[in-house]
Protein backbone atom coordinates (compact mmCIF):
# COMPACT_ATOMS: atom_id res chain seq x y z
CA UNK A 1 0.00 0.00 0.00
CA UNK A 2 2.78 2.41 0.99
CA UNK A 3 6.26 2.04 -0.46
CA UNK A 4 8.95 4.45 0.60
CA UNK A 5 11.98 3.76 -1.55
CA UNK A 6 15.51 4.98 -0.85
CA UNK A 7 14.53 8.46 0.24
CA UNK A 8 16.84 11.15 1.51
CA UNK A 9 15.52 14.33 3.13
CA UNK A 10 17.49 17.40 4.13
CA UNK A 11 16.80 20.27 6.52
CA UNK A 12 18.85 23.17 5.24
CA UNK A 13 22.42 21.91 5.36
CA UNK A 14 21.67 18.91 7.54
CA UNK A 15 20.68 15.61 6.01
CA UNK A 16 18.02 14.03 8.22
CA UNK A 17 17.22 10.86 6.25
CA UNK A 18 19.65 8.69 4.31
CA UNK A 19 18.42 6.16 1.81
CA UNK A 20 15.41 5.14 3.86
CA UNK A 21 13.05 2.44 2.61
CA UNK A 22 9.93 1.24 4.43
CA UNK A 23 6.71 -0.45 3.41
CA UNK A 24 3.23 -0.88 4.81
CA UNK A 25 0.81 -3.51 3.56
CA UNK A 26 -2.90 -2.89 3.70
CA UNK A 27 -4.33 -3.69 7.13
CA UNK A 28 -0.99 -3.65 8.93
CA UNK A 29 0.18 -1.73 11.92
CA UNK A 30 3.77 -0.73 11.24
CA UNK A 31 5.84 0.78 14.05
CA UNK A 32 8.82 3.04 13.66
CA UNK A 33 11.22 3.00 16.58
CA UNK A 34 14.19 5.23 17.22
CA UNK A 35 15.85 7.65 19.62
CA UNK A 36 14.91 11.28 19.72
CA UNK A 37 16.50 13.08 16.80
CA UNK A 38 16.81 9.90 14.74
CA UNK A 39 14.55 11.29 12.02
CA UNK A 40 11.24 9.55 12.73
CA UNK A 41 9.13 12.70 12.53
CA UNK A 42 11.00 13.81 9.41
CA UNK A 43 10.18 10.48 7.77
CA UNK A 44 6.49 10.83 8.61
CA UNK A 45 6.51 14.44 7.40
CA UNK A 46 8.14 13.38 4.15
CA UNK A 47 5.41 10.80 3.56
CA UNK A 48 2.60 13.25 4.26
CA UNK A 49 4.11 15.97 2.09
CA UNK A 50 5.51 18.52 4.51
CA UNK A 51 8.95 17.77 3.06
CA UNK A 52 9.95 16.71 -0.41
CA UNK A 53 12.73 14.14 -0.45
CA UNK A 54 15.87 15.09 -2.38
CA UNK A 55 16.22 11.50 -3.58
CA UNK A 56 14.06 8.40 -3.70
CA UNK A 57 10.31 8.00 -4.07
CA UNK A 58 7.14 7.60 -2.05
CA UNK A 59 4.39 5.52 -3.59
CA UNK A 60 0.90 5.15 -2.22
CA UNK A 61 -1.41 2.59 -3.82
CA UNK A 62 0.88 2.41 -6.81
CA UNK A 63 1.03 6.15 -7.35
CA UNK A 64 3.94 8.52 -6.76
CA UNK A 65 3.10 11.08 -4.06
CA UNK A 66 6.52 12.53 -3.26
CA UNK A 67 6.68 16.18 -4.27
CA UNK A 68 2.90 16.47 -4.16
CA UNK A 69 1.21 18.91 -1.79
CA UNK A 70 0.08 17.79 1.63
CA UNK A 71 -3.52 18.61 0.65
CA UNK A 72 -3.26 16.32 -2.37
CA UNK A 73 -1.82 13.52 -0.27
CA UNK A 74 -4.70 13.81 2.21
CA UNK A 75 -7.11 13.52 -0.73
CA UNK A 76 -5.38 10.30 -1.78
CA UNK A 77 -6.18 8.78 1.62
CA UNK A 78 -3.30 9.49 3.99
CA UNK A 79 -3.89 11.39 7.19
CA UNK A 80 -1.33 12.46 9.75
CA UNK A 81 -1.91 12.93 13.48
CA UNK A 82 1.10 15.05 14.41
CA UNK A 83 3.19 15.04 17.53
CA UNK A 84 1.52 17.08 20.25
CA UNK A 85 -1.82 17.16 18.42
CA UNK A 86 -1.38 20.61 16.83
CA UNK A 87 -5.04 21.50 17.25
CA UNK A 88 -6.57 24.83 16.34
CA UNK A 89 -6.69 25.84 19.97
CA UNK A 90 -9.25 28.65 19.67
CA UNK A 91 -11.74 26.50 17.78
CA UNK A 92 -14.30 24.16 19.26
CA UNK A 93 -13.99 20.40 19.23
CA UNK A 94 -16.49 20.16 16.39
CA UNK A 95 -14.72 22.80 14.32
CA UNK A 96 -11.41 21.00 14.75
CA UNK A 97 -13.00 17.77 13.59
CA UNK A 98 -14.53 19.52 10.59
CA UNK A 99 -11.12 20.86 9.61
CA UNK A 100 -10.02 17.26 9.22
CA UNK A 101 -12.74 16.75 6.62
CA UNK A 102 -11.52 19.59 4.45
CA UNK A 103 -10.86 17.47 1.40
CA UNK A 104 -13.69 17.39 -1.07
CA UNK A 105 -15.06 13.87 -0.74
CA UNK A 106 -14.67 13.87 3.04
CA UNK A 107 -16.49 17.20 3.41
CA UNK A 108 -19.71 15.75 2.00
CA UNK A 109 -19.66 12.94 4.54
CA UNK A 110 -18.51 15.04 7.48
CA UNK A 111 -21.71 14.75 9.52
CA UNK A 112 -21.67 10.95 9.42
CA UNK A 113 -17.94 10.84 10.03
CA UNK A 114 -18.30 13.04 13.11
CA UNK A 115 -20.95 10.63 14.37
CA UNK A 116 -18.53 7.77 13.81
CA UNK A 117 -15.68 9.58 15.59
CA UNK A 118 -17.96 10.35 18.52
CA UNK A 119 -18.80 6.67 18.77
CA UNK A 120 -15.11 5.92 19.11
CA UNK A 121 -14.59 8.78 21.58
CA UNK A 122 -17.91 9.47 23.34
CA UNK A 123 -16.16 12.20 25.34
CA UNK A 124 -15.89 14.31 22.19
CA UNK A 125 -19.67 14.31 21.83
CA UNK A 126 -19.94 15.70 25.36
CA UNK A 127 -17.31 18.33 24.59
CA UNK A 128 -18.48 19.16 21.06
CA UNK A 129 -18.93 22.91 21.57
CA UNK A 130 -16.01 23.40 23.94
CA UNK A 131 -12.95 25.41 22.88
CA UNK A 132 -10.12 22.90 22.57
CA UNK A 133 -7.61 24.95 24.59
CA UNK A 134 -9.76 24.19 27.66
CA UNK A 135 -9.58 20.41 27.19
CA UNK A 136 -7.32 18.11 29.17
CA UNK A 137 -4.30 16.57 27.45
CA UNK A 138 -6.03 13.24 26.93
CA UNK A 139 -9.08 14.89 25.43
CA UNK A 140 -6.94 16.99 23.09
CA UNK A 141 -5.28 13.84 21.83
CA UNK A 142 -8.71 12.32 21.19
CA UNK A 143 -9.61 15.39 19.09
CA UNK A 144 -6.33 15.09 17.19
CA UNK A 145 -6.97 11.43 16.40
CA UNK A 146 -10.59 12.16 15.59
CA UNK A 147 -9.53 14.92 13.22
CA UNK A 148 -7.13 12.47 11.57
CA UNK A 149 -10.01 10.08 10.94
CA UNK A 150 -12.26 12.80 9.52
CA UNK A 151 -10.64 12.65 6.09
CA UNK A 152 -11.68 8.98 5.88
CA UNK A 153 -8.08 7.84 5.45
CA UNK A 154 -6.84 4.50 4.17
CA UNK A 155 -3.52 5.05 5.92
CA UNK A 156 -3.28 6.90 9.21
CA UNK A 157 0.08 8.14 10.48
CA UNK A 158 0.49 8.65 14.22
CA UNK A 159 3.39 10.58 15.68
CA UNK A 160 3.61 9.75 19.39
CA UNK A 161 -0.07 9.49 20.20
CA UNK A 162 0.61 8.74 23.88
CA UNK A 163 2.61 11.92 24.44
CA UNK A 164 1.82 13.45 27.83
CA UNK A 165 -1.07 11.12 28.60
CA UNK A 166 -1.82 9.31 31.85
CA UNK A 167 -1.28 5.53 31.82
CA UNK A 168 -5.02 4.96 31.67
CA UNK A 169 -5.53 7.42 28.78
CA UNK A 170 -2.62 5.81 26.93
CA UNK A 171 -4.32 2.47 27.18
CA UNK A 172 -7.58 3.87 25.82
CA UNK A 173 -5.84 5.55 22.88
CA UNK A 174 -3.91 2.36 22.07
CA UNK A 175 -7.12 0.34 22.08
CA UNK A 176 -8.50 2.69 19.44
CA UNK A 177 -5.36 2.52 17.28
CA UNK A 178 -5.34 -1.26 17.52
CA UNK A 179 -8.91 -1.37 16.24
CA UNK A 180 -8.24 0.73 13.12
CA UNK A 181 -7.09 -2.09 10.78
CA UNK A 182 -10.45 -3.78 11.37
CA UNK A 183 -12.06 -0.62 10.03
CA UNK A 184 -9.91 -0.76 6.93
CA UNK A 185 -7.32 1.74 8.10
CA UNK A 186 -3.62 0.89 7.86
CA UNK A 187 -1.47 2.38 10.61
CA UNK A 188 2.05 3.80 10.62
CA UNK A 189 3.03 4.52 14.20
CA UNK A 190 5.87 6.34 15.90
CA UNK A 191 5.70 5.74 19.61
CA UNK A 192 8.08 6.09 22.54
CA UNK A 193 6.28 3.43 24.52
CA UNK A 194 8.43 1.08 22.50
CA UNK A 195 7.28 -2.05 24.29
CA UNK A 196 3.61 -1.39 23.76
CA UNK A 197 4.14 -0.21 20.20
CA UNK A 198 5.94 -3.44 19.30
CA UNK A 199 3.26 -5.49 21.01
CA UNK A 200 0.51 -4.06 18.86
CA UNK A 201 2.42 -3.74 15.58
CA UNK A 202 2.79 -6.42 12.91
CA UNK A 203 6.15 -5.20 11.70
CA UNK A 204 8.62 -2.58 12.81
CA UNK A 205 11.61 -0.57 11.63
CA UNK A 206 14.40 0.87 13.73
CA UNK A 207 15.66 4.27 12.59
CA UNK A 208 19.04 5.51 13.81
CA UNK A 209 20.77 8.71 12.74
CA UNK A 210 18.52 8.94 9.73
CA UNK A 211 19.05 5.37 8.53
CA UNK A 212 17.02 2.20 8.87
CA UNK A 213 19.26 -0.13 10.85
CA UNK A 214 16.94 -2.96 11.70
CA UNK A 215 13.57 -4.23 10.55
CA UNK A 216 11.39 -7.23 11.07
CA UNK A 217 8.37 -8.83 12.66
CA UNK A 218 7.46 -6.69 15.67
CA UNK A 219 7.40 -9.52 18.20
CA UNK A 220 10.87 -10.64 17.05
CA UNK A 221 12.23 -7.15 17.67
CA UNK A 222 10.63 -7.20 21.11
CA UNK A 223 13.02 -9.98 22.14
CA UNK A 224 15.97 -8.70 20.13
CA UNK A 225 18.89 -8.07 22.50
CA UNK A 226 19.92 -4.86 20.83
CA UNK A 227 16.40 -3.41 20.83
CA UNK A 228 15.93 -4.38 24.46
CA UNK A 229 19.09 -2.59 25.48
CA UNK A 230 18.85 0.48 23.24
CA UNK A 231 15.12 1.14 23.31
CA UNK A 232 13.45 -0.78 26.08
CA UNK A 233 15.98 0.14 28.76
CA UNK A 234 16.42 -3.50 29.77
Amino acid sequence: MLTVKNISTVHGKIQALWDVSIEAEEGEIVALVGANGAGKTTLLDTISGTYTPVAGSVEFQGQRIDGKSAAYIVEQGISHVPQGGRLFSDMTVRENLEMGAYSRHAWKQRTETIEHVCQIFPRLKERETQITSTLSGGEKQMVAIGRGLMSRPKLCIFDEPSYGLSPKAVMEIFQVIKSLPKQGITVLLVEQNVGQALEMANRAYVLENGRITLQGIACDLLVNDYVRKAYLGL
Partner: protein
Amino acid sequence: MKILDVQGLKKNFGGLAATANVNFNIEQGEIVGLIGPNGAGKTTLFNLISGAITPDSGVITFKGKDIAGLKPYRICRVGIARTFQSVKIFAKMSVFNHVIIGYLFGDHKHKTSGTSSEEAEKILDFVGLSGMSDRRAADLTLVNQKRLEVARALATQPELLLLDEVMAGLNPTEVSEAMELVRKIREKGITVIMIEHVMKAIMTICDRVIVLHHGEKLAEGKPGDITRNKSVIEVYLGDFACLPSKT
Protein backbone atom coordinates in the same frame (compact mmCIF):
# COMPACT_ATOMS: atom_id res chain seq x y z
CA MET B 1 13.07 20.50 57.41
CA LYS B 2 9.98 21.57 55.52
CA ILE B 3 11.01 23.54 52.47
CA LEU B 4 7.53 24.03 51.05
CA ASP B 5 4.19 24.03 52.81
CA VAL B 6 0.94 24.42 50.90
CA GLN B 7 -2.28 24.92 52.88
CA GLY B 8 -5.86 25.38 51.69
CA LEU B 9 -4.84 26.29 48.18
CA LYS B 10 -7.75 27.16 45.88
CA LYS B 11 -8.03 28.34 42.31
CA ASN B 12 -11.14 28.51 40.16
CA PHE B 13 -11.26 29.01 36.40
CA GLY B 14 -14.77 30.19 35.62
CA GLY B 15 -16.93 27.68 37.43
CA LEU B 16 -14.26 25.00 37.45
CA ALA B 17 -12.25 24.34 40.59
CA ALA B 18 -8.81 23.69 39.09
CA THR B 19 -7.32 23.52 42.56
CA ALA B 20 -9.71 22.77 45.41
CA ASN B 21 -8.37 23.06 48.92
CA VAL B 22 -5.03 21.34 48.37
CA ASN B 23 -2.71 20.73 51.34
CA PHE B 24 0.72 19.13 51.31
CA ASN B 25 4.27 19.78 52.31
CA ILE B 26 7.68 18.94 50.91
CA GLU B 27 10.79 18.12 52.92
CA GLN B 28 14.12 19.49 51.88
CA GLY B 29 16.04 17.07 49.68
CA GLU B 30 13.01 15.02 48.66
CA ILE B 31 12.02 13.97 45.19
CA VAL B 32 8.23 14.07 45.13
CA GLY B 33 6.15 12.85 42.21
CA LEU B 34 2.93 14.62 41.28
CA ILE B 35 0.63 12.40 39.26
CA GLY B 36 -3.01 12.34 38.26
CA PRO B 37 -5.27 12.11 35.21
CA ASN B 38 -4.95 14.66 32.41
CA GLY B 39 -6.81 17.74 33.60
CA ALA B 40 -6.43 16.94 37.32
CA GLY B 41 -4.76 20.29 38.02
CA LYS B 42 -1.10 19.29 38.22
CA THR B 43 0.26 22.03 36.01
CA THR B 44 -2.12 24.53 37.64
CA LEU B 45 -0.50 23.65 40.95
CA PHE B 46 2.94 24.38 39.46
CA ASN B 47 1.59 27.64 38.04
CA LEU B 48 0.35 28.64 41.49
CA ILE B 49 3.61 27.77 43.24
CA SER B 50 5.74 29.53 40.62
CA GLY B 51 3.51 32.61 40.54
CA ALA B 52 2.33 32.29 36.94
CA ILE B 53 -1.19 32.52 38.34
CA THR B 54 -2.46 33.88 41.66
CA PRO B 55 -4.41 31.61 44.03
CA ASP B 56 -7.95 32.60 45.07
CA SER B 57 -7.05 31.62 48.62
CA GLY B 58 -4.55 29.56 50.55
CA VAL B 59 -1.00 29.83 51.82
CA ILE B 60 2.20 28.74 50.07
CA THR B 61 5.12 28.88 52.47
CA PHE B 62 8.63 28.49 51.09
CA LYS B 63 11.36 28.31 53.73
CA GLY B 64 9.07 29.96 56.26
CA LYS B 65 7.96 32.81 54.02
CA ASP B 66 4.54 33.18 52.40
CA ILE B 67 5.04 33.45 48.66
CA ALA B 68 1.42 33.02 47.48
CA GLY B 69 0.57 35.64 44.91
CA LEU B 70 4.12 36.95 44.44
CA LYS B 71 5.22 37.70 40.90
CA PRO B 72 7.06 34.87 39.11
CA TYR B 73 10.39 36.72 38.99
CA ARG B 74 10.34 37.22 42.75
CA ILE B 75 9.51 33.57 43.33
CA CYS B 76 12.39 32.62 41.08
CA ARG B 77 14.69 34.82 43.14
CA VAL B 78 13.67 33.25 46.44
CA GLY B 79 14.85 29.95 45.01
CA ILE B 80 12.09 28.17 43.06
CA ALA B 81 12.66 27.36 39.40
CA ARG B 82 10.51 25.42 36.96
CA THR B 83 10.31 23.90 33.53
CA PHE B 84 7.27 23.96 31.26
CA GLN B 85 5.20 21.09 29.95
CA SER B 86 4.94 22.76 26.56
CA VAL B 87 8.45 24.12 26.24
CA LYS B 88 8.84 27.87 26.51
CA ILE B 89 12.08 28.60 24.79
CA PHE B 90 13.30 31.64 22.89
CA ALA B 91 13.29 30.07 19.45
CA LYS B 92 16.00 32.17 17.82
CA MET B 93 18.27 32.51 20.83
CA SER B 94 21.29 30.27 21.27
CA VAL B 95 21.29 27.43 23.76
CA PHE B 96 24.14 29.14 25.59
CA ASN B 97 22.28 32.43 26.01
CA HIS B 98 19.28 30.67 27.50
CA VAL B 99 21.47 29.46 30.32
CA ILE B 100 23.20 32.84 30.71
CA ILE B 101 19.80 34.49 31.11
CA GLY B 102 18.84 32.06 33.83
CA TYR B 103 22.19 32.50 35.52
CA LEU B 104 22.25 36.29 35.52
CA PHE B 105 18.61 36.48 36.52
CA GLY B 106 18.54 34.25 39.59
CA ASP B 107 19.36 36.10 42.78
CA HIS B 108 22.76 34.96 43.92
CA LYS B 109 25.94 36.76 44.74
CA HIS B 110 29.30 37.21 43.02
CA LYS B 111 27.84 37.07 39.60
CA THR B 112 29.66 38.70 36.79
CA SER B 113 29.36 37.99 33.12
CA GLY B 114 33.01 36.84 33.32
CA THR B 115 32.32 33.76 35.44
CA SER B 116 28.91 33.23 33.90
CA SER B 117 30.06 31.69 30.63
CA GLU B 118 32.16 29.12 32.42
CA GLU B 119 29.21 28.34 34.69
CA ALA B 120 26.82 28.08 31.72
CA GLU B 121 29.04 25.53 30.00
CA LYS B 122 29.17 23.49 33.19
CA ILE B 123 25.40 23.44 33.45
CA LEU B 124 24.97 22.48 29.79
CA ASP B 125 27.41 19.68 30.32
CA PHE B 126 25.52 18.58 33.42
CA VAL B 127 22.21 18.20 31.56
CA GLY B 128 23.85 16.53 28.55
CA LEU B 129 23.86 19.42 26.10
CA SER B 130 27.59 19.99 25.85
CA GLY B 131 28.70 20.91 22.38
CA MET B 132 25.36 22.47 21.54
CA SER B 133 25.91 25.96 22.98
CA ASP B 134 25.87 27.75 19.65
CA ARG B 135 22.76 26.13 18.26
CA ARG B 136 19.50 28.01 18.01
CA ALA B 137 17.06 26.62 20.55
CA ALA B 138 14.49 26.07 17.80
CA ASP B 139 16.85 23.65 16.05
CA LEU B 140 17.06 21.27 19.00
CA THR B 141 14.91 18.16 19.19
CA LEU B 142 12.03 18.37 21.64
CA VAL B 143 13.92 16.27 24.15
CA ASN B 144 16.92 18.55 24.02
CA GLN B 145 14.63 21.56 24.33
CA LYS B 146 13.36 20.00 27.54
CA ARG B 147 16.93 19.53 28.74
CA LEU B 148 17.54 23.16 27.89
CA GLU B 149 14.62 24.13 30.08
CA VAL B 150 16.15 22.13 32.91
CA ALA B 151 19.50 23.85 32.29
CA ARG B 152 17.93 27.30 32.30
CA ALA B 153 16.07 26.51 35.51
CA LEU B 154 19.23 25.12 37.18
CA ALA B 155 21.14 28.22 36.12
CA THR B 156 18.99 30.33 38.45
CA GLN B 157 20.48 28.19 41.26
CA PRO B 158 17.19 27.09 42.79
CA GLU B 159 16.61 25.22 46.04
CA LEU B 160 13.35 23.81 44.75
CA LEU B 161 12.93 22.67 41.16
CA LEU B 162 9.53 21.99 39.58
CA LEU B 163 9.81 19.63 36.61
CA ASP B 164 6.73 19.45 34.39
CA GLU B 165 6.78 16.25 32.33
CA VAL B 166 10.40 16.30 31.32
CA MET B 167 10.22 12.61 30.41
CA ALA B 168 7.28 12.78 28.02
CA GLY B 169 8.28 11.60 24.58
CA LEU B 170 11.37 9.73 25.76
CA ASN B 171 11.84 6.06 25.03
CA PRO B 172 12.58 3.76 27.96
CA THR B 173 16.35 4.03 27.51
CA GLU B 174 16.18 7.83 27.35
CA VAL B 175 13.92 7.77 30.43
CA SER B 176 16.67 5.98 32.35
CA GLU B 177 19.11 8.75 31.44
CA ALA B 178 16.62 11.40 32.53
CA MET B 179 16.09 9.57 35.84
CA GLU B 180 19.82 9.67 36.41
CA LEU B 181 19.79 13.42 35.75
CA VAL B 182 17.04 13.99 38.34
CA ARG B 183 19.04 11.99 40.87
CA LYS B 184 22.11 14.09 40.15
CA ILE B 185 20.05 17.25 40.66
CA ARG B 186 19.01 16.01 44.08
CA GLU B 187 22.63 15.20 44.92
CA LYS B 188 23.33 18.89 44.39
CA GLY B 189 20.98 19.51 47.30
CA ILE B 190 18.05 20.63 45.19
CA THR B 191 14.57 19.50 46.21
CA VAL B 192 12.50 18.26 43.27
CA ILE B 193 8.77 18.05 42.58
CA MET B 194 8.10 16.31 39.30
CA ILE B 195 4.91 15.94 37.31
CA GLU B 196 5.29 12.77 35.31
CA HIS B 197 3.22 10.07 33.66
CA VAL B 198 6.16 7.74 33.23
CA MET B 199 5.43 5.38 36.09
CA LYS B 200 8.79 3.66 35.87
CA ALA B 201 10.43 6.97 36.79
CA ILE B 202 7.91 7.75 39.52
CA MET B 203 8.34 4.30 41.05
CA THR B 204 12.12 4.32 40.89
CA ILE B 205 13.24 7.77 41.94
CA CYS B 206 10.45 9.38 43.97
CA ASP B 207 10.52 9.26 47.76
CA ARG B 208 6.88 10.16 47.87
CA VAL B 209 3.98 10.58 45.45
CA ILE B 210 1.03 12.96 45.58
CA VAL B 211 -1.99 12.12 43.43
CA LEU B 212 -4.35 14.85 42.25
CA HIS B 213 -7.81 14.29 40.81
CA HIS B 214 -10.35 17.01 39.93
CA GLY B 215 -8.14 19.56 41.65
CA GLU B 216 -8.11 17.68 44.94
CA LYS B 217 -5.54 15.49 46.59
CA LEU B 218 -6.72 11.92 46.05
CA ALA B 219 -3.82 10.12 47.71
CA GLU B 220 -0.33 10.61 49.05
CA GLY B 221 2.32 8.09 50.02
CA LYS B 222 5.24 5.95 49.01
CA PRO B 223 5.29 4.92 45.33
CA GLY B 224 4.67 1.25 46.16
CA ASP B 225 1.57 2.07 48.20
CA ILE B 226 0.24 4.49 45.62
CA THR B 227 0.32 1.94 42.81
CA ARG B 228 -1.73 -0.44 44.97
CA ASN B 229 -4.28 2.22 45.91
CA LYS B 230 -7.68 1.25 44.44
CA SER B 231 -8.87 4.77 43.64
CA VAL B 232 -5.55 5.64 42.01
CA ILE B 233 -5.81 2.55 39.84
CA GLU B 234 -9.36 3.42 38.94
CA VAL B 235 -8.83 7.05 37.91
CA TYR B 236 -5.23 7.08 36.79
CA LEU B 237 -3.33 3.87 36.28
CA GLY B 238 -6.02 1.79 34.69
CA ASP B 239 -5.42 -1.89 34.43
CA PHE B 240 -2.01 -3.02 35.63
CA ALA B 241 -1.26 -4.34 32.16
CA CYS B 242 -0.15 -0.84 31.21
CA LEU B 243 2.57 -0.56 33.82
CA PRO B 244 6.01 -0.45 32.27
CA SER B 245 7.24 -3.36 34.39
CA LYS B 246 5.64 -5.58 31.80
CA THR B 247 8.02 -4.59 29.02
